């Protein structure tokens, strides 16, 4: 018994001495084992992909000013050289502001040319992807109200004032698969009153898909597609509607993001482009569009730590 104890003590001491002579590298490795945050950042560079929202929200106290243009048809009856391939026309214009109340909650306001639509939205990052296996994906919830401010086209329109309002709800599920590739799926639901086609239901289910492929550190290929036809929408409508598809390049330079896109959707805001995309990629209905986004930090940080206080002169 005593002999066993001595042997254990001997082993222990042997370990002590060898451990002190351990390589600095393996010690460093064990010391910094849990020093890296498990969160996966920058799933997308911007809060939008092409037409659709990405799972990203604004950083706390950051204000994003966003200007977006959709031009006219490149080809077909309204396009070609007579309209300079659509650049003479603007099918929709948008200016909006997104503000981060916290890193996870963003509120936004915007105005579109089409229908003089004002939109008010809230976006909340509920679940965040972790690289330690605890959470495989991000989940962001998005809700947007649209308010049509234009005069009625005829007496039967907007009889009830609430007919001017529409609501869009969406769950954005995304995953950063690698440094280059991020994908997302977005089930959504649109509620509205202002329906132009007699057979069309007021409410529509949507299912969106979007992705980003980084080409360089600051340049990405982005694309999104929203299923509207083929879900709850009936097939026998007087007007032919198409599913919106957008592709583009996104360039990030510090606080600016420039997005150059091609898409068949005439309109910019979900409450407009989900129910009313009447153009197709097949017959020249595709158009050019761009976004300029600029981030401003609104409040000076109250950070007391002088090692972290940045300053712009």
């Amino acid at each position, binding site marked *: 018994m005593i002999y066993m104890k001595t042997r254990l003590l001997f082993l222990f001491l042997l370990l002590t001495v060898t451990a*002190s002579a351990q390589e600095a590298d393996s*010690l*460093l490795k064990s*010391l910094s084992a849990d020093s*890296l945050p498990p969160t996966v950042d920058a799933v997308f560079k911007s809060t939008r992909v092409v037409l659709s929202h990405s799972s990203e929200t604004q950083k706390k106290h*950051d204000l994003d000013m966003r200007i977006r243009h959709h031009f006219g048809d490149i080809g077909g009856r309204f396009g070609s050289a007579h309209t300079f391939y659509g650049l003479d026309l603007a099918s929709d214009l948008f200016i909006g502001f997104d503000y981060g109340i916290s890193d996870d909650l963003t509120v936004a306001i915007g105005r579109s040319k089409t229908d003089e639509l004002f939109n008010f939205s809230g976006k909340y990052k509920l679940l965040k992807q972790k690289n330690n296996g605890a959470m495989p994906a991000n989940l962001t919830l998005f809700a947007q109200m649209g308010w049509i401010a234009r005069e009625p086209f005829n007496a039967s329109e907007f009889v009830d004032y609430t007919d001017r309002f529409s609501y869009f709800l969406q769950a954005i599920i995304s995953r950063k698969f690698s440094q280059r590739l991020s994908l997302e799926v977005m089930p959504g639901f649109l509620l509205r009153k202002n329906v132009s086609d007699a057979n069309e239901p007021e409410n529509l289910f949507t299912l969106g898909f979007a992705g980003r492929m980084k080409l360089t550190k600051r340049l990405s290929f982005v694309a999104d597609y929203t299923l509207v036809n083929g879900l709850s929408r009936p097939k026998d409508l007087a007007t032919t509607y198409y599913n919106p598809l957008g592709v583009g390049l996104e360039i990030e330079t*510090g606080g600016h993001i420039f997005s150059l896109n091609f898409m068949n959707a005439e309109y910019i805001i979900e409450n407009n482009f989900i129910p009313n995309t009447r153009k197709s990629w097949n017959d020249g209905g595709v158009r050019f569009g761009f976004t300029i986004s600029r981030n401003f930090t609104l409040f000076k940080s109250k950070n007391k730590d002088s*090692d972290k206080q940045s300053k712009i002169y």
Partner: protein
Amino acid sequence: MISTKKIISLVLIVLFVMLYLCGSAQTYVSKNIRASIYSSTPLEDIKAASDKASAVLITSTREVAVQVPVKSLEFDRKLMQEHFNENYMESDKYPFAKFKGIIAEQLDFSKDGEYDVTVNGVLSVHGVDQKRSIPGKISIKNGTVQISTAFKVACANHKIKIPTVVFTKIAEQISVKAEGKLNLLKQ
């Protein structure tokens, strides 16, 4: 009734204890070294700091190593922090910045004192290793070791590209500081 084996064990134990007490192979460690970076240009001063750097000092070999988890560096502005990790440091690919070297001077770690030292070794940032000779200060007091250093890192030496649009806002040379207290590693 004492066996030879027991005697041998006892002798060995005494030897090891002596070896241990001599302090010939003492190791000091820390998990919360403060590391900070500072970029200064006429247009913008950018600062970031972390308290999660690790350090190891092995007295027998005079080896020193400091490692900073790049993502633990906190900026005033979160968007800037995101760009720092995504566009410049590629922190997912190269999660740590590290310096490992040998102290040039002979120090007596058993006595209290303050020493200006030079550490010759390798600085690895953004996956690029650079041979560096870095000045620092080591003070020994009551069995703890305080280290501090300040040096500059040229972005170009570590293949960190600064695009022309932000060239006026980010310095070509980044000032780096690190300091903290290391404690004797308890087994």
